């Protein structure tokens, strides 16, 4: 039973986020639970990052497809709201994957570091261009040193 549950959780958690393909929904903290009920039905519980996140339907479909590929065809994907998603739910490997692709963490003070210049040690000044970016969970910034724009995950 434990093995099956772990397998289901791994499959569901390994589904890539439809909009940020470099991270999995497990790493983003979107998957809240995955288990097999007594009647053999698989129940996966997910939570939205933002309530209007348009990726939620795609995520539900992707979870069902991934589990179906592993032989689990009777799958129910439930959505829960509590506790509300927060950036603290993103895992360490999730942050690393985001950073590798040029998406910055919000930073302790709410000001992110430029992902291109961060490795130089000295933090470079950055400017917020917009509180909203290509996905609801990101904001748009510009580095005043390298002048490149970058996205950062919004603190929530």
């Amino acid at each position, binding site marked *: 039973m434990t093995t099956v549950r772990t397998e289901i959780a791994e499959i569901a958690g390994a589904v890539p986020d439809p909009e940020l393909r470099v991270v999995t929904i497990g790493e983003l903290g979107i998957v809240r639970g995955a288990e097999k009920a007594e009647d053999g039905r698989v129940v996966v519980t997910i939570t939205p990052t*933002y*309530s*209007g996140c348009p990726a939620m339907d795609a995520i539900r479909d992707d979870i069902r497809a991934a589990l179906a590929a592993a032989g689990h065809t009777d799958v129910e994907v439930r959505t829960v*709201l509590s506790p509300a998603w927060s950036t603290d739910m993103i895992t360490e490997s999730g942050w690393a994957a985001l950073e590798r692709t040029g998406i910055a963490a919000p930073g302790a003070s709410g000001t992110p570091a430029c992902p291109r210049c961060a490795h130089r040690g000295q933090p470079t000044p950055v400017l917020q261009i917009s509180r909203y970016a290509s996905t*609801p969970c990101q904001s748009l910034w510009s580095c005043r040193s390298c002048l490149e724009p970058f996205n950062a995950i*919004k603190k929530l």
Partner: protein
Amino acid sequence: MSGLAERATTVDLLALGDDALIAAQRLAEWVSRAPTLEEDVALANIALDQLGAARMLLATAGDEDELAYRRDDRGFRNCLLAELPLGPGRGDLDFGWTMTWLLMLSAAQLLRYTDLAAGADEHAAGIGAKAVKESTYHLDHATQWMLRLGGGTEQSHRRVQEALDGLWPYGHELAEGIRDRWLALVEPVLAEAGLTRPADRWRPDGGRAGRHTEHLSFLLAEMQSLHRAHPGAQW
């Protein structure tokens, strides 16, 4: 349907859900027309947040599609502010008008969602807690723009003051029952933006009882046309 009468809080949920749904539809008018690309994305994201909150609230109050697509104007419980055009007249899109509208609306939504989050109904509290975080961003976005427009050029100041004068009366219905707390959020922004807080005179209402302006009918005609032509349509 779990029964509208069963949930004591449903009247509030329906009103809140309708505020968010109608606001989402209004804001969507800006898509591809905002002054900058960043603002276009911002307004679209705020509209999406509103739609997300609306879906959660309406799905709790009943069948979300039935409620969104099958009710006539008299069945909607949104406040009048939510349905007003985002400019002085029907079909107008005025940015200062929109930011004033968003400041007023999101301040009220933030307070009502905060109250919902503290309520006894666990499911509704979850929706409230989720929406509080998003409303905080909306209020902040509107605030930043009010400061820039109010303290900007002679023209930007004049136009945002006109918007404030035009929309202010609708704040009575919007913030009914929470007016003092609402004023405590809105007035400091107006003061910092150098804008004159309008005097309280006319108090249009009726939205909560289903008596709406003509603007809601036009909005619904557009929002519901596809579903009415093709009942049950999905994509």
